[in-house]
């Protein structure tokens, strides 16, 4: 028994007092502080991005309230609960996705949500953001690592079904995030590098196939405009040109709070949702953008640490996947707004205006905190 094993098996009372308060609350103080910082900073930027719409900030604050509540509640559950309920939630989620497609077809158009009559609108794809990593982590960790080929195959199917259903909606951004979360589980579980390389090669070979048969026109257009936004400067290229101009014109220290001409004069589209980092970049400059990225880095590093310290394979895989997926959120959003990735609808996590994604993300962090604070019992 080495030292770490020994420490783990010590009774909780022997831990130092401050840590134990947080542990008893089942919260991770570093993660919590960083999340809160991003949330507060994000609402400050949102106030400017909506040109001083206090109502929007208020609604966003309510979402954060719900999100943090969900986080705290979820953190109280032992990770075992996720393991036990993961499969059920996954199955329900897939059924709901099918229901979305069916009702969408009836409504003669694309649809991403289900209307629960008299209650609320619900996006099953948000549920899957959590259900897929839980399901895959559970499935793969059952037989030990690295996974066998048969398990890989089943995992691939478990991943493919919801991703394919969400692409149909069509929601490229969400399906990308869910696919990443599943692939990260498989990667972290120890998929051999040999297989990774051959899959990567196959994926590259698949690009023409995707281009011709799978991608919709608007998706192709997004990719084309990435390579040259000036192809269609008033259409698809407009967003990206304006956001790059907004960020670039911010300079080192920015134009000042509420003083960004690109955002305040409405040149920047979607300035309070997907493109909100352009507002930050314009008004707070390079320094402001780097501070936000640094906060994200703290969250990610903390998440990775929690993953490494996870008590078993399931916890480690789930925590790792959630953390890496969060990084993908950040990277894809900042990458697309700054013009190095195509515009796929991925919000800037915890900053972009919008309900479900904040709650989902914070619920995910609740799982991380549960993993972090429920060590061996």
């Amino acid at each position: 028994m080495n030292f770490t094993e020994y420490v783990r098996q010590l009774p909780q009372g022997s831990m130092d007092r401050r840590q134990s308060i947080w542990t008893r609350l089942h919260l991770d103080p570093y993660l919590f502080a960083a999340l809160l910082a991003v949330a507060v900073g994000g609402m400050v930027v949102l106030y400017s991005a909506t040109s001083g719409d206090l109502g929007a900030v208020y609604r966003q604050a309510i979402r954060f309230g719900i999100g943090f509540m969900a986080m705290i509640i979820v953190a109280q559950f032992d990770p075992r609960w996720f393991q036990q309920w993961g499969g059920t939630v996954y199955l329900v989620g897939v059924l709901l996705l099918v229901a979305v497609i069916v009702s969408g077809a009836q409504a003669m158009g694309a649809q991403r949500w289900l209307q629960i009559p008299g209650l609320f609108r619900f996006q099953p794809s948000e549920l899957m953001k959590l259900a897929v990593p839980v399901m895959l982590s559970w499935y793969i960790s059952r037989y030990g690592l690295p996974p066998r080929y048969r398990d890989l195959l089943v995992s691939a199917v478990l991943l493919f079904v919801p991703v394919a259903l969400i692409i149909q909606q069509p929601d490229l951004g969400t399906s990308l995030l869910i696919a990443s979360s599943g692939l990260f589980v498989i990667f972290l579980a120890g998929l051999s590098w040999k297989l990774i390389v051959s899959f990567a090669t196959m994926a590259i070979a698949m690009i023409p196939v995707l281009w011709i048969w799978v991608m919709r026109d608007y998706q192709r257009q997004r990719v084309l405009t990435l390579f040259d936004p000036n192809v269609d400067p008033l259409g698809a290229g407009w967003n990206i040109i304006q956001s790059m101009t907004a960020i670039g014109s911010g300079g080192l220290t920015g134009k000042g709070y509420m003083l960004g001409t690109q955002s305040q004069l409405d040149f920047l589209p979607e300035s309070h949702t997907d493109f909100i980092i352009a507002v930050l970049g314009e008004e707070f400059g390079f320094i402001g953008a780097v501070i936000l990225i640094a906060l994200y880095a703290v969250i990610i590093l903390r998440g990775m640490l929690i993953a490494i310290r996870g008590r078993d394979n399931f916890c480690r895989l789930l925590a790792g996947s959630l953390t890496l997926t969060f990084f993908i959120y950040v990277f894809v959003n900042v990458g697309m707004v700054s013009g190095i990735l195509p515009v796929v609808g991925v919000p800037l996590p915890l900053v972009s205006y919008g309900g479900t994604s904040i709650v989902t993300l914070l619920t995910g962090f609740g799982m991380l905190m549960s993993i972090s604070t429920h060590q061996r019992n």
Partner: protein
Amino acid sequence: MLNSSLDNREKERRLFLSRMTASFIFIAILILALVGRLFYLQVVQNERHEARSQTNRLEVLPIPPIRGLIYDRYGELLARNEPSHTLSVVVERSGDLDALVQELGALVDLSEDQVSRFFDRVRGYRRPFEPIPLKVRLTEEEVARVSANRIFLEGVQVDAELIRQYPFGEEFAHALGFVGRINQEELRDLDVGAYAGTRFIGKEGVERQYEDALLGEPGFQRVETNARGRIIRVIEKQAPKPGSNLHLYLDQELQKMAYDLLGDQRGSIVAIEPETGGILAMVSNPGFDPNLYVSGFPTEIYNALRDSPDNPFLNRAIRGQYPAASTIKPFLGLAGVDQGFVTWDYTINDRGYYQLPTDDRIYNDWKRGGHGRVNLRKAVAESCDTYFYQLAYDMKLEAIHDIYDQFGFGKNTTADIYNPFTGINPSREWKQNRHGFSWYAGDTINLSIGQGYMLATPMQLAIATSVLANRGRWVTPRLLMHSNDESLLDSIPEPPPDVHLNNDSNWDRMHAAMQDVVQGARGTARASGLGATYEYAGKSGTAQVIRIERDENGDPIGDVPEQFRDHAWFMGFAPLENPQIAVAVLVENGGSGSGVAGPMTRSLFDFYLTRELEQ
């Protein structure tokens, strides 16, 4: 067992740790890439994006100048600017154009024509973000309806602008010309800066001739706009310089009189003030409503005008070329007598025809049986062809060509008439070049009665009459009297050299002969001269379109189809002493010059002179 299980767990932990390490490296690289990208945009390329964001929000908007006004000689406004509301669409800012136009159609009355022209303009060459007009001259109700629905109509704007309006419409259509929308061809050639914000350009007539002066200079305002082009604030403003106002010699009342006199007959009337060379009236009939060019011609009206056999777009005053016929005789006679080919007392015995000494060919006088004993004065008064056949034969072509040239035939002598035809004053070289034949003596004979190769425009005949009235003194014929841009008058060219006679009394004697035409006992147009309270001079002309059967008075026998009837000419000036007005009247296929054009001339003189007396 326990050991191997522990070993296994340890292996799994190591595997996971190595994967996390790989992920960490991966994430670190990508985060650095993001930070690097931001650094590149915000620090390295900052200036470029800064400039771009400035041009984004700052827009330089042209303020079109107010087009110069055009007045007649008494200050009557002939071309003015009228506020008009124009409905236009910025295509770049609107969504589905078809749906939008349909929506607009529910709010304002749109003709199929307006819609199809709008789409032509959308598809054609245009400046980006330039509003494309859909309808001009909205009614107040339509303006209100569009404004009320403004928020639902992306990219739609209603602008108040000044557009050209011609209060006298058709009467001045050919004299003033008109402005129209700048077309693609013009857009290629014009100075884009000078026309910033301006959508109209002078197309014909005075509007075209004085385009540069009338246009003015655009002003600019630097404004901050938002992404939808709405102006947030004006940062800097430079007022436009309005175009110069033009005061023309044209006399609105006289012009109207001339227009009314022509009635529904095709023809032209030009009146000139001999003292100044100022063009008092310039009518071509039929005309068209120039205001339609400004607002956009409805296609069916335009097509009807374009296809009309009456050719209403032809400015007959300066681009209608006709044989001058007998109106040329005073000029020829003047040269003949002054250069000694004949004297005032010299007579011939006219038996109704003339035969060249070298040729069997017979040249008939218009009057069968002839005029008997004829001197120059009688030859002018009665328009004796035979007398002038003889004179022309004696003078030869060169002398005739020369005197016609001195009076301005065969060339443009006007200062500011846009795009006139020059008519033809034939010469030996001209015929050789044009027809490939040498000059025959018979051609000279035809020239003596203004037929054959000779062609003149009503403007040219009016000018020549004015010079004749002026006793040979040339003043450059012009429309422009004065302007607040004084440099415009400096660009009036020098007139041709004055016509000098060896004996100045020949002017008076020719004037007297021309007075006989209208006020003599046997003058061809004595009927039109009856009862005049002033002395005046004139000369009729009847230009053959084709050879037709005539009676002994030269009148056609039987019914002649209209297009073969003679063109009726009359030229004259009044009063005899100190002439104030010189006129040329042409009525296409009008028949007899003395019978049709003579009375019109008299009416113009009566009106002009008596009205002048009242003032």
